C-alpha cells in the first residue's frame, strides 16, 4: 500500500481558491485540517482578511480552527519547518498571507481578528452592525437557556391573563377555551404546548402570518390543503417516474384491458395516472390492486380484490409479484395519504392553536424586547432581516467592513433551514467564476442534532449548489474524502459492512435517511483491532436483572482493560441517560473512578438535596418539610424516634417544634448544634447573600466533614457546586433567589468527581462524544429503543417538514379525545416523524461506533425465543442481529459470565497526615488619616433626626455652604463677585434643584456682599498680605505628648483662610450656619465655639508645626457669614 492516503489528490484539489466545493468527509477524515489549509490558502490571496468567513457550529470548532491558523501563522513568522509534509506545504502560504496583510497584522494576531466564528456569533455580528435593520434592541443579548425558559413561561402566563380579560365572545378567548377543552381543561399541558411551539416558532411563522393576514378558517384550510396537495403531488411525481419503468407499468394498458374485459365491475384506471393530487384516488386503486393489506406485493389474486379468474397464471400476476421494492414502498406509503380535498379533521382546533401561538408570540417578543434579550430563533431571524429580503438584499459591504469573498462552513450536516437561508443571502448576487467561493464540508451520517433543527436533507440538497434567488444555482464541486485517519482497518471494515449493508442500506431520503459512503483506513492503520458483542438475555420475572448483569460485565471489562491500560483512553458512550446511574454504580462497585460528563443532575444528589432544604428552611419558616429534612440531612441524621418526638412538640410549624425540642437535654448534639448555628445566622437571611448564610451554617455544623464521610470528596464538591449556583442565583430578595436557583438547578450537573480527573475512562452520551475519539469504546444499552414510549404515544401536536425541497411545514393535532376520530394528516405526520427519529438514531450509532480507534465493545439486552435471540425493535442491536455475516465480524459473547479473577482497581491514597495550614498575617495600615474637620462633618453635626427623612433639605445647606466658601476663595484672589446666574449654576452643580438654586442665588450674593462690607472680612480677604492662602491644604503627624509623633496617624485638613499680616497669623474658618431663631447671639457663639474649638486648635498646631512659628502668634477665628461676625477663640 502506498504511504500516501488514497484521497490525497482530492484533498489538494479542494484547496483551489478559485473553485467552490461540497465536501463529504466521513468520521475521522481530518476535515478541520482541510478547512484550516483552505483558510490559509485563501488568506494568502485575499485583499483583506475579513473577506474570508469561516462558519462553525460550536465554539469549540471555531476555537480549534483559530488555534491551528494562529499556530501556522506564528510558525511562518518564525520561519519554522516541520516533519509533516501537509503542514510544511502550508507554511509558504502562511508566510505570503503575513506579508500580504502586514497592514492588518493586528487582525491576524487578535483572536477574534479573523472571521472564524459560529453561525450564532456571526448572526450576532450582523445584528450588532445593523441592529436597526435587524429590528432588535440595540443592546440585545442572547438569553441564557435557563432565562429563556423563564421568559417563555412568563410570556405564556401573561397571555393567558390578557386573554381571560377579554370579553367571552372574543375569538382569542374562544380559542383559549377551545384549546383548554381539547386538553381536558388542563393548563399545564396547554402551557407546555405553547412553550414548545414558541421555541419552534420559526417553523410555524408562515402559517401564523397567513392567519394574521386572513383570519378565517377557510383560508387556513386552503393553505394547509395547498401544502398537502403539493406534497402529494411530489410523492406521486416520484411514482409517476418509477412506475412506468416497471414491467407492470410498461404493460399497464394491456393489463387494464384484460381486467376490464374479464371483470368490468371494478376496472383499474385506464391509463397510468398523473402526478396531480387529484390523481391520488387512482393511484390508491392501483396500490390496493397490487398490494396486500400489510403492504406486500400480492401473491394471491381474488376476484373480490378486482382480479379475474385464473389471473394468477397470467404474465401480469408475475409483474405484480415482481414489482421492485422501491415501487412497492412508494405504493405502500401513498395508501396512507389523506385526500387533499377532504377537510383537515380538526381545522377548528388548529385555527385556535395558531391564534394562540400568534398571540403568545407577540407577548414573548415584547417581553424579550423589554428585557433586552433574544433567543436563538430570534437571533437567526434578526440576522436574516439584517441581510435584507430576497429582492432587496442588504449591501454586505455596508453591513460589514468588507465584502465577503469566500465562505467556509464546517459540519454542514448540522445546518438548519434558517442557517441555510442565511448562507443563500450571503451569496446573493454571486456569479459563477467571479472569484468568490463557497466551501462546505460535513458528513451527513453524523447529523444528530435534529432536535436543534438541523436538517440533514440540506446537505444533500446543497450538492446541487447554493440556490441564488433569480439566478439559479451557485455550483459547488462535489468531493468525497475517503480516508479515515482515526480507526484501525478492522473497525473500518466492520463499520463499512454493518452500516453499508444493513443499518444504512437502501436509504429513504424522504425521511432524511442518508446513503452510506464507505471509507478506507489511513496507511499504517491496517493491523490490530477488536470488536466484541455481548448480549444479555432478559429474564421475564426479573426485568432489570439482565441490565445489572450487563453493567457488571461492562465494569469488569473496563477494569480489565484499564489495569493494563498503557495510557489507553476508554469511552463509555450511552445513547440515552436512562441507565447512566446503573452503569456508574457498577463501575464504582469495581472500584473504578471514571470521568462523567454531565452525568447526574446535581439536584438529584442526596447531599445537594440537604443543602437545598437548608436554603429553603432559612427563607421559609413555614416549610415544614424543609425543616424536617434538616434533621435527616447528612450532617444531622436522626432516627424515627427523634422525628416522632419532635413531631409531638408544641408549635404549629416544625421550625418551632425543632426549637423547643433542642432545649430538651436528651436532644442529640447534632440537633443542638444545628439549631445553635441557625439561630446565630438566621438574622442574616435577606441581608447577606443566601449562599453565604447557607455556606456559613454548613461549616458551623461541620457539614463538609459529614458529607465527606458519607459521600467522599465528590459529595463535598457537589455541595460546593450547589453553593456556587446559589450565589449565581442571588437576587437580593431571598424568595427570588430561590426561584432563580430552581431554574438554574434544572440544568446543573454534578461536577466531575475530583478523584477521577486523571482517569482514562470517560462516560458520556453519544451526543457529547461527537468530535471526540477513544482507543477503546464501549457501547452499552444497544437495546435502546429510539422511539421510546413515543412510538405509542400521540404527542398533542406534530409539526413536521414536508418531504421535498420546499422546506414547508405542516402541523396537525392529536385527535380530540372527545371525538375519537382518526386524523389522516396527523397519522401521516406521525409516520414521517417516527421515520425521521429512526433515521437519526441510525446516524447516532454511526457516530458512536466511529469514535473508536482500536477496540469496540458492544452490548445490550435480548429476548430469547425458540433458541433465537432478538432485540427491541428499531434498536441498534436489532440491526446488528439482523446483519448477515455478523459472526465473522465480531466476537460474540452471549450471556458472558463475569470472570472470577479479580484485578485490583488503581488505589487512591488518602493523606493520613495533613500539613499545617500556611500562616498569613494581616498587614497593619501605615497610618490612618484623620481630619480635624470637614464641611460635611459640620453639617452632620447640625442635622440629626430620623433616618428615613428625605435628604433634600440638608443637601441645600450643604450646597449653600460650599458655594459661599468658594465665593470667599474666589474673592480672596482679588476677583469680583460672579453674576447671580453663575451662583445659581454653582448651586445647581451642587445638586440643588433648579428652582431652589435660582431662588437662593440672590440671597447668597447678598450675604457675601454684606460680609465684604464688614471690616474684618474685607481685611482678611485682601490678597496683598505678606502671606495669604485660601482652602489651604496641610498635613502633619500629630504630637501625642511632648515630641512623640503619633506615627500611625496623619492629620489632613483644609483651612478656609490663612493670613499673615506681618504681626499675626489669622486662621479663619467660615461658618455659614445662620443664627437660629429663638436663641441669643451670645449663647449661639458659645455653642459654636464649643463645637469647633478642637478643630481650630488642631489647625493651629498644624500651622505652627509647618511654619515653625509660635502658636501664640496664631489667632483662631470663626467667621459667621450670616451675621457677618468674627468670633475669636482664645486659649
Amino acid at each position: 500500500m502506498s504511504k500516501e492516503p488514497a484521497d490525497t489528490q482530492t484533498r489538494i484539489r479542494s484547496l483551489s481558491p478559485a473553485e467552490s466545493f461540497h465536501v463529504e468527509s466521513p468520521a475521522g477524515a481530518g476535515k478541520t485540517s482541510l478547512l484550516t489549509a483552505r483558510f490559509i490558502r485563501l488568506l494568502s490571496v485575499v485583499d483583506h482578511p475579513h473577506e474570508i468567513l469561516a462558519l462553525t457550529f460550536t465554539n469549540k470548532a471555531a476555537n480549534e480552527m483559530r488555534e491551528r491558523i494562529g499556530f501556522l501563522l506564528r510558525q511562518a513568522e518564525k520561519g519554522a519547518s516541520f516533519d509533516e509534509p501537509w503542514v510544511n506545504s502550508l507554511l509558504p502560504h502562511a508566510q505570503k498571507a503575513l506579508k500580504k496583510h502586514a497592514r492588518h497584522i493586528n487582525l491576524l494576531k487578535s483572536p477574534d481578528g479573523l472571521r472564524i466564528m459560529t453561525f450564532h456569533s456571526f448572526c450576532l455580528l450582523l445584528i450588532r452592525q445593523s441592529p436597526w435593520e435587524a429590528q432588535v434592541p440595540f443592546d440585545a443579548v442572547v438569553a441564557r437557556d435557563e432565562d429563556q425558559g423563564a421568559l417563555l413561561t412568563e410570556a405564556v402566563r401573561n397571555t393567558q391573563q390578557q386573554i381571560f380579560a377579554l370579553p367571552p365572545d372574543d375569538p382569542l378567548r374562544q380559542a383559549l377555551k377551545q384549546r383548554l377543552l381539547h386538553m381536558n381543561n388542563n393548563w399545564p399541558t396547554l402551557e407546555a404546548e405553547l412553550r414548545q411551539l414558541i421555541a419552534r416558532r420559526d417553523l410555524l411563522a408562515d402559517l401564523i402570518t397567513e392567519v394574521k393576514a386572513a383570519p378565517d378558517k377557510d383560508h387556513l384550510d386552503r393553505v394547509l390543503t395547498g401544502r398537502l396537495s403539493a406534497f402529494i403531488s411530489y410523492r406521486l411525481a416520484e411514482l409517476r417516474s418509477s412506475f412506468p419503468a416497471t414491467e407492470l407499468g410498461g404493460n399497464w394498458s394491456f393489463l387494464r384491458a384484460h381486467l376490464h374485459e374479464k371483470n368490468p365491475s371494478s376496472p383499474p384506471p385506464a391509463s397510468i395516472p398523473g402526478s396531480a393530487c387529484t390523481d391520488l384516488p387512482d393511484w390508491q386503486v392501483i396500490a390496493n390492486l397490487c398490494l396486500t393489506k400489510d403492504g406486500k406485493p400480492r401473491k394471491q389474486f381474488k376476484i373480490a380484490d378486482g382480479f379475474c379468474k385464473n389471473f394468477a397464471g397470467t404474465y401480469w400476476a408475475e409483474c405484480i409479484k415482481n414489482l421492485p421494492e422501491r415501487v412497492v414502498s412508494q405504493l405502500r406509503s401513498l395508501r396512507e395519504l389523506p385526500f387533499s380535498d377532504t377537510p383537515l379533521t380538526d381545522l377548528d382546533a388548529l385555527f385556535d392553536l395558531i391564534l394562540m401561538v400568534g398571540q403568545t408570540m407577540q407577548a414573548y417578543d415584547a417581553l424579550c424586547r423589554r428585557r433586552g434579550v433574544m433567543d436563538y430563533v430570534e437571533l437567526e431571524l434578526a440576522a436574516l432581516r439584517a441581510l435584507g429580503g430576497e429582492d432587496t438584499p442588504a449591501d454586505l459591504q455596508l453591513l460589514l467592513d468588507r465584502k465577503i469573498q469566500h465562505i467556509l462552513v464546517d459540519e454542514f450536516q448540522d445546518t438548519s433551514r434558517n442557517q441555510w437561508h442565511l448562507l443563500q443571502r450571503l451569496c446573493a448576487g454571486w456569479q459563477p467564476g467571479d472569484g468568490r467561493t463557497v466551501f462546505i464540508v460535513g458528513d451527513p451520517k453524523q447529523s444528530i442534532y435534529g432536535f436543534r433543527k438541523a436538517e440533514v436533507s440540506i446537505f444533500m440538497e446543497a450538492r446541487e449548489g447554493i440556490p441564488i434567488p433569480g439566478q439559479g444555482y451557485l455550483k459547488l464541486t462535489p468531493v468525497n474524502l475517503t480516508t479515515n485517519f482515526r480507526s484501525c482497518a478492522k473497525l473500518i471494515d466492520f463499520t463499512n459492512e454493518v452500516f453499508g449493508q444493513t443499518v444504512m442500506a437502501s436509504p429513504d431520503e424522504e425521511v432524511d435517511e442518508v446513503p452510506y459512503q464507505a471509507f478506507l483506513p489511513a496507511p499504517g492503520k491496517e493491523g490490530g483491532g477488536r470488536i466484541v458483542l455481548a448480549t444479555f438475555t432478559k429474564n421475564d420475572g426479573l426485568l432489570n436483572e439482565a441490565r445489572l448483569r450487563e453493567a457488571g460485565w461492562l465494569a469488569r471489562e473496563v477494569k480489565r482493560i484499564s489495569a493494563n491500560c498503557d495510557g489507553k483512553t476508554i469511552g463509555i458512550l450511552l445513547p440515552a441517560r436512562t441507565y447512566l446511574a446503573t452503569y456508574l454504580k457498577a463501575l464504582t462497585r469495581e472500584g473504578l473512578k471514571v470521568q462523567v460528563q454531565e452525568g447526574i443532575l446535581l439536584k438529584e444528589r442526596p447531599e445537594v438535596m440537604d443543602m437545598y432544604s437548608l436554603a429553603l428552611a432559612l427563607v421559609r419558616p413555614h416549610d415544614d418539610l424543609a425543616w424536617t429534612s434538616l434533621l435527616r440531612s447528612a450532617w444531622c441524621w436522626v432516627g424515627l424516634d427523634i422525628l416522632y418526638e419532635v413531631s409531638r412538640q408544641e408549635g404549629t410549624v416544625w421550625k418551632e417544634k425543632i426549637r423547643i425540642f433542642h432545649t430538651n437535654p436528651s436532644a442529640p448534639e447534632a440537633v443542638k448544634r444545628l439549631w445553635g448555628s441557625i439561630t446565630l445566622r438566621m438574622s442574616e437571611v435577606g441581608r447577606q447573600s443566601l449562599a453565604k448564610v447557607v455556606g456559613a451554617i454548613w461549616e458551623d455544623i461541620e457539614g463538609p466533614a459529614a458529607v465527606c464521610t458519607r459521600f467522599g470528596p465528590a459529595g463535598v464538591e457537589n455541595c460546593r457546586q450547589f453553593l456556587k449556583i446559589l450565589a449565581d442565583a442571588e437576587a437580593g430578595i431571598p424568595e427570588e433567589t430561590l426561584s432563580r436557583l430552581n431554574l438554574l438547578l434544572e440544568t446543573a450537573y454534578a461536577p466531575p468527581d475530583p478523584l477521577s480527573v486523571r482517569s482514562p475512562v470517560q462516560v458520556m452520551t453519544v451526543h457529547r462524544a461527537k468530535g471526540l475519539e477513544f482507543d477503546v469504546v464501549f457501547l452499552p444499552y444497544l437495546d435502546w429503543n429510539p422511539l421510546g414510549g413515543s412510538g405509542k404515544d400521540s404527542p398533542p401536536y406534530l409539526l413536521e417538514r414536508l418531504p421535498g425541497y420546499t422546506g414547508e411545514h405542516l402541523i396537525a393535532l392529536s385527535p380530540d379525545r372527545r371525538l375519537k376520530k382518526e386524523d389522516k394528516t396527523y397519522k401521516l405526520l406521525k409516520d414521517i416523524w417516527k421515520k425521521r427519529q429512526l433515521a437519526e438514531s441510525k446516524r447516532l450509532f454511526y457516530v458512536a461506533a466511529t469514535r473508536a480507534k482500536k477496540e469496540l465493545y458492544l452490548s445490550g439486552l435480548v429476548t430469547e425465543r425458540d433458541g433465537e435471540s432478538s432485540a427491541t425493535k428499531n434498536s441498534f442491536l436489532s440491526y446488528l442481529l439482523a446483519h448477515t455475516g455478523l459472526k465473522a465480524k465480531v466476537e460474540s459473547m452471549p450471556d458472558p459470565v463475569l470472570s472470577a479473577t479479580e484485578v485490583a482497581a488503581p488505589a487512591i491514597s488518602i493523606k493520613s497526615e495533613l500539613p499545617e495550614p500556611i500562616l498569613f498575617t494581616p498587614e497593619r495600615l501605615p497610618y490612618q488619616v484623620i481630619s480635624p474637620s470637614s464641611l460635611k462633618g459640620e453639617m452632620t453635626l447640625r442635622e440629626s433626626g430620623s433616618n428615613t427623612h428625605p435628604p433634600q433639605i440638608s443637601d441645600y445647606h450643604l450646597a449653600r455652604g460650599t458655594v459661599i466658601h468658594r465665593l470667599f476663595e474666589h474673592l480672596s484672589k482679588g476677583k469680583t463677585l460672579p453674576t447671580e446666574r453663575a451662583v445659581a449654576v454653582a448651586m445647581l452643580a451642587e445638586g440643588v434643584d433648579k428652582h431652589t438654586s435660582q431662588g437662593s442665588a440672590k440671597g447668597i450674593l447678598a450675604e457675601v456682599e454684606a460680609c465684604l462690607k464688614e471690616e474684618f472680612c474685607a481685611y482678611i480677604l485682601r490678597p496683598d498680605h505678606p502671606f495669604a492662602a485660601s482652602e489651604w491644604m496641610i498635613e502633619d503627624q500629630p504630637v501625642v505628648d511632648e515630641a512623640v509623633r503619633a506615627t500611625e496617624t496623619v492629620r489632613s485638613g483644609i483651612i478656609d483662610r490663612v493670613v499673615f499680616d506681618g504681626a499675626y497669623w489669622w486662621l479663619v474658618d467660615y461658618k455659614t450656619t445662620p443664627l437660629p431663631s429663638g436663641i441669643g447671639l451670645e449663647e449661639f457663639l458659645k455653642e459654636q465655639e464649643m463645637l469647633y474649638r478642637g478643630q481650630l486648635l488642631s489647625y493651629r498646631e498644624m500651622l505652627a508645626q509647618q511654619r515653625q512659628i509660635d502658636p501664640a502668634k496664631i489667632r483662631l477665628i470663626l467667621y459667621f457669614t450670616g451675621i457677618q461676625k468674627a468670633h475669636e477663640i482664645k486659649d
Partner: protein
Amino acid sequence: MGYLTARTTQELQAKIIEKADEETLILTPGRRLARRLRHAFRIAQIERGRRAWLPPKIVTLNSWLNETWLESWPEECIVSDIACLCLWKEAVEETALPEGLESDIGLYRLLDETYSAIIRHKIPPLPRDYLSPLIGWRQKAFEIFEGRLRAKGYVHPAFLPALIKDKLRDGSCVLPKQILCVGFESPAPVENDLLTGLAKDHGAVICSTESNEPPYIKAVGLPDVEQEVMWLAQDVLEKAQDTPLHRIGVVVPNMSAYAPLLSRVFQELIGSPTVEEGGNYNISLGESLFSQPLTQAALLPLRLMLEGEGRGLFLALLLSPYYGLWGRHRNILAQADRVWREYSIDQGLSDLLYILQKKKPEILSFIHPPGHDLAGLLRDLPGKRTGAGWIEALYRLWDIMQFPAINNEDEERVFRHLQEKLAALACDLGEEKIDAYTFYAWLKYALEETKVNVPGYEEAGIQVIGLIESRGLSFDHLYVVGLSAGSLPQPVRHFPLLTREEKSLVQGATIESQYLFAEQAFAHLMTVAPAVTLTRPLEEKSDPLPASPFWPEGEENTAVNYWLEPGQASLRAGWLRQAHEGWRDHPIPYPTEDTPLVPAPLPDELSVTAIEKAISCPFKFFADTVLRLSELPEPTIGISSQEKGNRLHRLFALFTSQMRKQGVFLTDAGQSESILKECIAEVLADVTDNPYWQIERERWSGLLATWLCLERKRKEEGWRWLLEEANFSSLQNASWPFTVHGRIDRIDINDGERKICCWDYKTGSTPPPVDIHTHFLAPQLPLYLLALRGGKTSLPVPFQSLTAGYISLKSEGEVQFGEPVKDEAGWETCLSAWEKEITSLGQRLSAGNFPADPKPIPKGNRNGACQYCPYLTLCTYWKKEEENDHV
C-alpha cells in the same frame, strides 16, 4: 514639551514625589493612582522626618476639569448624567422614532455614548449627501438635543477638555507652577489635545514608563477557571510569606467575570478583606447599589405595585429583615403563604388579604400597620408624580413600614448612598410628572450606575484590581489573571449609531484599536513589577479556550488537586480541612433501614387512603400519617386536579341524592337534566367568575352527557342508585392491629338480581386491575367490599352478591364503568388475599417498621411510588449510595 520617564512605575513614582511640592498639580486618569501618589508623598515626608507638610494637589483629570470649570463661575452648568438622559428623552420624543426603536433609557444612553464618542474622538461632521435612515435620525436627534442643552444653559461634559483648553488659552485660568501628568497612556483625542496644550504652553510634564528591560515572567495554564483562581490564591499566599502584602498586585482584565470567584476563594483561604488590626486584601469589585439586599428590599413596595402584586413579592416584603414593622412576627406571617398556596392565590393584594380574612383572620392583624390598611396604602401609589413626589411617597411608606431596620455600618453606608441617589434623582428628574414605571426605570438606572465598593485598604493588603485601575501603580510582584482570548484585547465596543468610518476613529470600536489598546496596556503592565506571573484557564465547560495573543510561549501547565495533594495554602479553607477529616472515616453510608420505632405510634384506626399510602411505602405513611407532615403546595394556574376531583365528586353525590329525593328517574330526560343543572350551579356557586371554572363547567357538560347515557344503560340493566358517600368505620379483622374507616362514593343495587355494586369515582387515572388482584397496591375497592360484607355500612335492602368497580371520569371520551374483578368468586379470592396483605402490613407497621420500600419500585429514574412523593429528602431510599440499585 517636558517628559519624565522611568523604566518602571516604581521609579517613576519616586521621581514624581521627588519633584512635587505644594505648588504642584498632579493629574492622573483615575482616582486610584491619585490616592496612591498622595500616599507615596506622605510616606516620603514621614521618611524624611517632616512633622508637617503641604501636599501637592493630586487629582484626576476629570475632577480638575470640573473644578477649573466651576472656578471660572460659568453661567452654564455641566449637565448631570440623569438630566442629560432626560434631555435625550425629550429629543427622541420630538423626532419620528424609526420603526423598531423604542424610546427608553437604553436608547438615551446609547445616544449619549455616541455623542460623547464623537466629541471625544473629534469625529468630523458627516457629509450631508448620503445618510442612512438611522444615521439621519441620529443627526436629527443630536440637533434637537444640542438645542435643548443650550436652551437650558447646560454644557455636555464631553466638551469640558476643549472648553478648559480655551480658558487656558485666554488666560482666564490660573495654573500652579508645576504640572505633572501621570498615567495617560492612551488618552482620547480631546484629552490628548488638552494634555499636549498643557505641556506645550504651560510647561506641564508628561510622566510615563518605558520598559526596555522585561520583567521576570512566568506563565501558568490551569485546567479551568476554578483551578486557576485556587492556584492564584495559593501562590499569592506563598508569596505573602516574604513580600509586604500591599506590594502584591493582582490585575484582572476581566474583572466582572472573575470577581465573584476571586472573592469567594480569597474569603475562604484568607478571610475577610479587612480585620481590626489591618488589611488582608482589597478587591475593587464595584457592586452596583441596585444589587444590594437593602436596596432590593427598599424597592419592594414599588415593585409590588408595578409587578401585579404577586404573592412572592408580598411575602418577601413581610419577611424582609429590613422592615421593622413586621420584625417580630415573621413566623406567623409566613403562615399566610401556606394559605395562599393552598388556595392557589398568586396575585392581587386584595385577593391575598381576602383569603386570609376568610381562612386565617388572626394573621391579618399582624400584616396591617397600626392605623393603616396595607392594600389601601399601596393602592394610593399609582398615578403620576414628579420624581421628588415619588421619592416622598416612597419615604412615607418606609416610615410607616419602619424601613430600614439597619444592622451594621455597611448597611448604614448603603442606605446613605441610596438616600443621596434619591436626592440627586429628585433634582434631576425635574418637574415633569411621570408614572411609576418611568420612575422605576430611572431609579433602577441611577442605582445600577452607582457602585458600592466592598471595604478594603489600598495601603495594606493584597491589591486585586482591574486593568484600567492598574495604571501607574507599582508592585513587587504582579499577577495577571485570566489571560484567555477575549480578556486582552477585550471584545470590540458596540456603537450601532456610528457609521463605519466613524467607528474607525473611535477607540475600542474596531478590532484593530482594541488590539492596539491592549498592546499598550500589556506593555505597561510589564513595567509595574519586576516579576510577573500570568495565568489562564485552558478550558471552559470542557472546551479548549485559546490564550490571549499576549500570552508568552513556554507556559507551564499545572493543576490543583486539593484532595490528592492538599497544600498548606489550600488547607487554610475551613471546609477543606473539615472534609479531609471526614474523608478519613469514609465511607460511613447511611443506615440502609431505620431502626424500628417501639412502641409503634400507630393510630387505632386508619383511613383507606392511609392504608394505600402504607402499602405504597411505609415510610411515606410514617411521614404523612404519623408525623403529619405535608409539603408546601405549589399554587396552580387553572384548577388543580384535586380540586377538579373534589367538586366532581360533590356534584355526583348531590345529583344522585337529589334525583332520589325528588323521585326522578334517569329516563325522565327533561327533569334529570334540570336537576343536574341545579346541582352544577350549586357546586360551582362560589367560582362563577373564575374563567377556568367556566370552562370546567363546559367540560362537565360533555362528560356528564356521556355519563348519563351509560347510567341509563345500566338502569335498563336493572341497576339503581342506592346510596352515595356511604361512610364506614371500625372495619376490623382479628389479625389487623387497627380498624379502618372510609367512604364509598356510591352503592348501586340491582333489585332483580339482588346484587350490590359499589363504585369509586375516578377523575384521574384508574388503577389497572393487576394492582388489585395481583400486585395488591390499590386497596379501596377490596376494603369497601370488606366493609359492606362486614356490615359496616348498613344497607337498607338485603342482597346476595357484592361487586365493586371504578367509574372513570377522566374526560368525555374516557367515561366508563369498569369492574376489575369479573365475578363474585373472583372477589372472594381477592378479598381473602387482601385480608392477608393487610395483616402482614399491620404486623410490619405495629412492629414499628416504617422502611422506605416503594411499590411500584422506581426504575432507573425517580418514578414508581416515588414519582410524586415529597419525602425523598427524609427517607433512606434515595440516600443509599452503593447497596441499592434503583433499577
